[in-house]
Structure formats: structure tokens, C-alpha cells
């Protein structure tokens, strides 16, 4: 897949499905016509770097796709928070998050009901409302930051990585190094700041979790409590989160330390997989508390169902974690090879900057 195809594919991802093929074909045709025109002028084929310049002039694929969309809805409270470029993605992510959260809530309440626990409509309603508030606030905050970044730096995007804060997931047969501006040899400030904020929030949440298990179990905290294994791996989880904060802080000061980021990320991911391993090995993740501990209703059955859900979740997390380690290790090896090949990656990064 050449540069043009990858650019068009990036635009197509943000287009309405109905028009996707038609617009993609026309856009491809326009870009190829422009390249041919330029080649006729120069009397030779354009190099990959020259093609990149042409594509950069066309702008961020997300912004271009938004121009084709007739739906220009946005989120605004007095002033615009999330613009039309990111709005469709915002809705998708929010719907997915809420769908998943409500599904988990439904499973927990069903399990409690099956086991004979008394559940009030008020309980269900307040849990759903709380989750709706938390999810909407967090997702809106993240997207508003991305939107602000996109507005401030509309030209900060690259075909093999980040586009206005969103990963375009474009797989390249060959790594492209954009020398026009900051590119692959640079950790963006936005990424570092986002990681620091998200990790700090996670840290605060984990600290409070010890005192308020309802933060993870919701109203089920009246009948359930976290199994001892969570307290055993707690220190390791905190350590990994702190390591990520330290790493992001260092990259904030030294954005060109790509190798450092690569190594720390692999170590943190291995640590994460280790945590998941210990958790899976434990076999039980919630235990009975309150009335359930006293044997009210079908307690054993409830615990079995909830622990089964935890098992599925942990196995899923383990698979994702293992896949991430493989991916990041491959990236790290490529990075190391690139460094030894060019002899001086730092120089490339600086040139990019």
C-alpha cells in the first residue's frame, strides 16, 4: 500500500459508510492527477518525501473527512467543547463505554437477583446514573483536550502515527520519517501530559478504592468485598502506575528519548501481565460481605457468577496485555535496528524537530 492509498484510507475511516467508496475513489484520482501533473513539470517521478509534502498540504485526514460529512454536530456548553471533526468518534466511544458499563451493571444485578438478594429500583437507577455521569465526564474531558490540541495544531499529524491526538492505526510496510516537522522521532507533549493526568487520576482512584470499595463494586459493595489478592498486587499496580508517570514526565522534558520510552513501556507491560497472571492464579476476586456473608439467599451461586465474569475479564486483559508486549517489543527491536543502521537516531529526531 503506497502513501496515497494510506492517506485515502485514513480519510475513508472517518467518512460515512454510504459515501466512503465513492469519495475515496475520487480523492485517490485527484491526488494521483496532482502527482502526475507535478511529475510532468519536473520530468521525473516524485520521491516519497515529495509525495509526503503534497499529502501534508491536503491537511489532516480527519479534518478533510469532516468537510465531506453533512452532519456538523458538535458538543457545546456556551462555547464549543468538541467540534464536528471529532464528534462522530466521541459518540462512538461514549456509546461503547456506556454500553459495556451498563452490560456489566446488568450482569451484577442479575446475579444478585438470581441469588435472592433484595435489589431496589432506586439502587439500579442510582448506579446507572452515577456511571452515566462518570463516563460522560471522563470521555468528554478527554475528547475536549484532543479537540483543543487538534484546533491548536491542525498540521501535527503523520501517516504512521498520531493525527490530532487520535491514532489512525495505519500500518506501514516501511516506516516513514516525516522531516517536514516533528514526526516519528518525537514523543508529543500532548501524549505525555495526557498520560500523566490519566495515571494520576488512576492512582487517586486506586488509593480511595481501599477505603471505598463501592468505587469499583457499586451498590454491590453492601454484599461483596474485594478478595485478598487485590491487596497483594496493589503495591505492584501502584508501582507500575508511578513508573508510567515518571516515564511520561521525563519524556515531557526529553521528547526525543524514544528508546527510553520504548524500553520503559515494555517493562511496564510485562509488569502488567505479571499482575494479571497473579490475579488469574488466585481463582477468586470477590468474596461475600454483609448479609451475603451470613448466608442470605443463594450466596455461593452469586459469587460464582460474579467471579466467572471477573475471570473472563482478566483472561481478556491478559490476551490484550500479551499482544501489546509483542507489538511493543517488535517496535523496540525495529527502533534499535534503525538506530544501529543510521548510527545516530538522535540526529534524525533533532532534524525532525
Amino acid at each position, binding site marked *: 500500500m503506497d502513501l496515497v492509498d494510506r492517506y485515502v484510507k485514513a480519510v475513508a475511516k472517518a467518512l460515512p459508510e454510504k*459515501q466512503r467508496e465513492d469519495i475515496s*475513489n475520487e*480523492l485517490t484520482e*485527484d491526488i494521483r492527477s*496532482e502527482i502526475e501533473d507535478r511529475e510532468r513539470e519536473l520530468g521525473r517521478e516524485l520521491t516519497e518525501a515529495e509525495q509526503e509534502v503534497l499529502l501534508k498540504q491536503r491537511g489532516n485526514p480527519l479534518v478533510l473527512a469532516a468537510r*465531506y460529512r*453533512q452532519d456538523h454536530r458538535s458538543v457545546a456548553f456556551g462555547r464549543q467543547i468538541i467540534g464536528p471533526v471529532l464528534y462522530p468518534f466521541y459518540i462512538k466511544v461514549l456509546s461503547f463505554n456506556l454500553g459495556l458499563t451498563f452490560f456489566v451493571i446488568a450482569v451484577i444485578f442479575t446475579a444478585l437477583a438470581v441469588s435472592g438478594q433484595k435489589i431496589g429500583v432506586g439502587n439500579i437507577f442510582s448506579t446507572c446514573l452515577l456511571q452515566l455521569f462518570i463516563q460522560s465526564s471522563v470521555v468528554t474531558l478527554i475528547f475536549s483536550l484532543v479537540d483543543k490540541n487538534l484546533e491548536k495544531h491542525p498540521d501535527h499529524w503523520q501517516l504512521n502515527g498520531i493525527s490530532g491526538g487520535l491514532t489512525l492505526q495505519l500500518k506501514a510496510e516501511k516506516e516513514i520519517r516525516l522531516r517536514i516537522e516533528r514526526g516519528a522521532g518525537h514523543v508529543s507533549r500532548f501524549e505525555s501530559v495526557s498520560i500523566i493526568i490519566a495515571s494520576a487520576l488512576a492512582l487517586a482512584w486506586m488509593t480511595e478504592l481501599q477505603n471505598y470499595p463501592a468505587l469499583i463494586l457499586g451498590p454491590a459493595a453492601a454484599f461483596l468485598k474485594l478478595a485478598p489478592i487485590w491487596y497483594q498486587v496493589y503495591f505492584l499496580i501502584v508501582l507500575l502506575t508511578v513508573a508510567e508517570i515518571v516515564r511520561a514526565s521525563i519524556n515531557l522534558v526529553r521528547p526525543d528519548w524514544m528508546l527510553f520510552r520504548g524500553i520503559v513501556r515494555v517493562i511496564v507491560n510485562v509488569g502488567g501481565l505479571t499482575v494479571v497472571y497473579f490475579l488469574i492464579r488466585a481463582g477468586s476476586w470477590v468474596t461475600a460481605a454483609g448479609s451475603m456473608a451470613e448466608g442470605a439467599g443463594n450466596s455461593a451461586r452469586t459469587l460464582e457468577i460474579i467471579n466467572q465474569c471477573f475471570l473472563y475479564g482478566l483472561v481478556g486483559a491478559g490476551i490484550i496485555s500479551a499482544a501489546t508486549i509483542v507489538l511493543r517489543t517488535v517496535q523496540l527491536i525495529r527502533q534499535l535496528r534503525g538506530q544501529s543502521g543510521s548510527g545516530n537516531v538522535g540526529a534524525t529526531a533533532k532534524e525532525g524537530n
Partner: protein
Amino acid sequence: MTPGTDNHDLFENLRLELRRGSLVLAVLAALRKEQYGYTLRKMLEEAGMAIDEGTLYPLLRRLETQGLLVSEWREEEKRKKRFYKLSDGGAVILKELLTEWKSINASLNGML
């Protein structure tokens, strides 16, 4: 932000607003003769009405949806290209718009 920058931004916004209406007229006029997107863009550029592709193609689609243009995919120089031309309804609208534009132009000339 300095007053100079403010003025420049304001001018740029007003200029874009002024051009927006004229671009529709220019595109409709240019498509009295059938063309595909890239040649249309080049033609407009050479005529001093440069328009970037991110504005042109969505505009062409909008005009086609409104029934002012018709298009078809055809092969030319071994590549499939989408050719646009003014529809019958578009020709009527273009005529009316040109009359309106001439009238606005005459009024403005009288005032300036």
C-alpha cells in the same frame, strides 16, 4: 493577541465569506463544460479562483445533491474519473444567479 492580528483575522474571515458565495457561481459557470475534479480545480486556479480540494469536492457533492450538477464515472487515460457537468436545472439557476450577481455588482459600483 495584537490589534493588528485581530484585524487580519477579521479581514480573513470576511474575505472567506465573500468568496464562498462567488465560488458556487464560479463552479457552476465552469461546469457548463463537462470536467472532472482535478481539471476543474486547475481551471479555477488559473482563472484566479483557487479552491482547495477539501472545499471543492464537498461543494460538488452538495451541488449535485441539490440537483444543480450531474456526474458520471468514466474511464479516461486508463483511469476512472468522475465527470461533472451542469444539469438543466443548474443552468436555469446559474442564469438567475448571474443576473443577481450583475445587479449586486452594479449597485456596489454605484456606491463605491
